[in-house]
């Protein structure tokens, strides 16, 4: 994947994006995901800047999704997407291409259908009330007579029935689908309740009776649709965020053609034998062997190892590694679908399957609820006939049971809680990708951390050095963008850079410090045998002097120890599974106070370690960031990834914490647990409500006004209870 972040130099080497251009009858189109746009000035700057480019007819930035749509005039002779990227970069914004196929499928059809249904149901419920309120008054012996009441009922039928039939399509189709599959979901009692309510209300109105429930049917549909809409919004938001994180940043590769020109193509089109250019700052798109060039690769996301890997001709490198210093030509030896990355994706899928067997709370409730309520209604019909009521009255009683027990509160209970919980987590910088993930997270009692990039910041930090040489070495380090040089320069603070500095990719930097030639880099580069070993090091040598050694280590995050302690205080077990070398892992484990750690693990071994924990009956939360963690993330009961993680890990994880704080892990677990408690309270309340309402309906105490008050009242109670998740966070 190529992201032209402002910090990366935009060079002629950058990928050519013409492969992402869509040509339509009205000209060429390009969709880009723009990073860093947040304000009114950004919109003006970007849209004006792009529209000023030759041939561009229209540019529009959607600030909510970050999507910039650029359209070229049909008359434009040539659409140049690279000019757009260059212009954006010059304005100070990073961007990545949208996958054209994904961009096409952006329109959220289901959400639109739900919103329209919600509008119609809202219209219905508001207007039916106009007739219901006068009709209710007739129930208390006010002056309205039987005929006026029937007239009122007819008018509410005229508005209510079409609205309900139109708006409740979602429930009917879902119920029908589930019945055909041979089981009953929550939509079955809802649909049955609505249909029976309408039928009975029509028959009552025809006979001039009192039991017409058009208003109840309309308000029920409206309230249930609110729950459904909230649920959909949550999923849509998570989906689009997840897309923005990975799928839309279509991974690109730069293929060299026969004449030696680099051309940007989607990574999935890479074939074995293709020659690819890997510019500094790019990720390697597929596995392959280096043909020419020298560089160092950051493989932290691939293997978990914090030390950069040296790459030269003949060295085999893996998809997902980040090129740090030099330009490389790579000969792909696998296609994109056979690379290590694709292998990981397959491991991930296998893990995800075991996760999909998880039964959601609401479905568990429906499994109990549906048979109980339906047999209760059937029993009340039989009972009423046995005590000698007329058939009409007996049916009325049974239908009343179905109406008042219609799972209105249940339908709202879980979505309301999940919306509130994910809203609160969003504020804390945690993105929840699905409601089921929160439920799984609430059950977790063991947390497994990856080391590099999770417990540690993933950046090298200077730990041992000779202070007298620091300032001289820093003069060379300031001229280089290598992570080790940057870490050195950071410690030295601002100061002058050396003269005539030249960087030898993969080796080091050379230049003049205070007039004396000097070198900073690998041991071999300064002309000595490295003492090396497990440590990350950099050597500095001035001509005619002895070499000086700088040692680097990957720092622990400042809140890592605090997070681990907070988890352990709550009785949650913590372990570390890392792909890095034992020495580095032990140092990190001791730093945060974890006894159970393992090092040098392959992705499959991480999965096995998690399976072993699960076999002991533990519910495991995996927190990881690398490509090597993706399979483990998918296998664990719940998973989290930091916002800087590899795309594949972010797509495997249930939650992504975008803030730089590891404490988010503890916060997320706390919110998930409180959400589960609220959901269970809501279920308990619904059960209690049904325990009172069902017998009342059985003995015939329910009339239209009681039904209306009881149903909206119970929905209100569950929604307010869900909001308590927010109340707690403010205290």
């Amino acid at each position, binding site marked *: 994947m190529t992201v032209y972040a402002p910090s990366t130099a935009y060079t002629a080497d950058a990928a050519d994006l013409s492969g992402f251009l869509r040509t339509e009858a009205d000209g060429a189109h390009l969709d880009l995901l723009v990073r860093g746009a947040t304000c*009114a000035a950004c*919109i003006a700057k970007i849209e004006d800047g792009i529209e000023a480019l030759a041939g561009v007819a229209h540019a529009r*930035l959607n*600030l*909510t999704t970050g999507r910039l749509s650029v359209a070229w005039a049909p008359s434009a002779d040539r659409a140049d997407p690279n000019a757009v990227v260059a212009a954006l970069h010059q304005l100070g914004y990073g961007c990545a291409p949208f996958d054209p196929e994904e961009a096409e499928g952006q329109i959220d059809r289901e959400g639109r259908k739900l919103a329209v249904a919600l*509008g*119609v149901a809202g*219209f219905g419920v508001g*207007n039916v009330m106009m007739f219901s309120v006068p009709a209710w008054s007739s129930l208390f012996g006010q002056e309205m007579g039987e005929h006026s009441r029937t007239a009122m009922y007819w008018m509410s039928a005229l508005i209510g029935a079409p609205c309900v039939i139109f708006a409740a399509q979602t429930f009917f189709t879902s119920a029908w689908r589930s019945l055909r599959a041979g089981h009953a979901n929550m939509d079955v009692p809802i649909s049955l309740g609505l249909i029976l309510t309408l039928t009975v209300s029509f028959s009552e109105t025809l006979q001039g009776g009192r039991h017409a429930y058009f208003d109840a049917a309309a308000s029920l549909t409206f309230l249930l649709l609110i729950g459904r809409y909230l649920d959909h919004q949550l999923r849509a938001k998570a989906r689009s965020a997840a897309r923005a994180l990975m799928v839309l940043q279509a991974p690109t590769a730069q293929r060299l053609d026969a004449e030696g020109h680099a051309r940007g193509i989607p990574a999935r089109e890479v074939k074995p034998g293709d020659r690819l250019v890997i510019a500094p700052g790019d990720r390697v798109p597929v596995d392959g062997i280096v043909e020419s060039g020298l560089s160092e690769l950051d493989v932290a996301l691939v293997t978990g190892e914090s030390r950069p890997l040296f790459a030269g001709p003949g060295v085999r490198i893996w998809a997902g590694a980040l090129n740090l210093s030099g330009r490389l030509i790579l000969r792909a030896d696998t296609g994109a679908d056979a690379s290590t990355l694709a292998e990981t994706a397959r491991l991930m899928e296998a893990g995800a399957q075991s996760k999909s067997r998880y039964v959601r709370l609401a479905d568990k409730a429906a499994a109990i609820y549906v048979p109980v309520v339906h047999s209760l209604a059937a029993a009340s019909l039989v009972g009423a006939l046995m005590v000698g009521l007329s058939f009409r009255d007996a049916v009325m009683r049974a239908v009343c049971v179905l109406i008042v027990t219609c799972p209105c509160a249940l339908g709202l209970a879980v979505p309301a809680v999940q919306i509130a919980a994910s809203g609160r987590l969003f504020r804390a910088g945690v993105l929840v990708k699905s409601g089921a993930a929160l439920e799984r997270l609430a059950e977790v009692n063991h947390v497994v951390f990856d080391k590099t990039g999770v417990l540690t910041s993933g950046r090298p930090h200077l730990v041992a050095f000779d202070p007298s040489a620091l300032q001289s070495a820093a003069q060379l380090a300031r001229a280089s963008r290598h992570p080790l040089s940057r870490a050195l320069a950071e410690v030295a603070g601002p100061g002058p850079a050396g003269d005539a500095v030249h960087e030898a990719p993969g080796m080091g930097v050379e230049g003049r410090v205070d007039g004396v030639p000097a070198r900073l880099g690998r041991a071999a580069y300064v002309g000595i045998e490295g003492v090396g070993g497990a440590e990350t090091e950099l050597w500095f040598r001035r001509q005619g002097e002895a070499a000086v050694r700088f040692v680097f280590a990957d720092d622990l995050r400042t809140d890592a120890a605090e997070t681990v302690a907070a988890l352990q205080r709550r009785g949650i077990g913590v372990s570390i599974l890392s792909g890095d070398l034992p020495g580095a892992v032990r140092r990190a484990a001791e730093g945060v106070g974890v006894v159970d750690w393992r090092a040098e693990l392959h992705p499959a071994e991480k999965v096995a370690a998690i399976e072993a924990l699960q076999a002991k009956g533990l519910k495991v939360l995996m927190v990881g960031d690398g490509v090597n963690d993706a399979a483990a993330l998918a296998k664990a009961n719940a998973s989290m990834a930091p916002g800087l993680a590899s795309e594949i890990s972010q797509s495997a994880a249930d939650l992504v914490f975008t803030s730089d704080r590891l404490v988010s892990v503890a916060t997320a677990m706390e919110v998930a647990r409180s959400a589960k408690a609220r959901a269970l309270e809501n279920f308990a309340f619904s059960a209690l409500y049904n325990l009172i309402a069902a017998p009342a309906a059985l003995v015939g105490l329910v009339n239209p006004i009681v039904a209306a008050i009881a149903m909206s009242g119970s929905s209100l109670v569950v929604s307010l209870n869900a909001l308590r998740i927010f109340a707690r966070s403010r205290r």
Partner: protein
Amino acid sequence: MNIIFVLVPIAIMMALLGLIGFFWTFRSGQYEDPKGDAMRILDDHKRDGP
């Protein structure tokens, strides 16, 4: 009492207007980019609306 047969259709007409209004806002894409639209209002020179 007969006045109700005049008032009721008027009331329903007004409610229908509201419903049609809602559909119109929906179709014209006014919910596509709430964040951007909130910002665009601060921009002085004329740019296309939501």
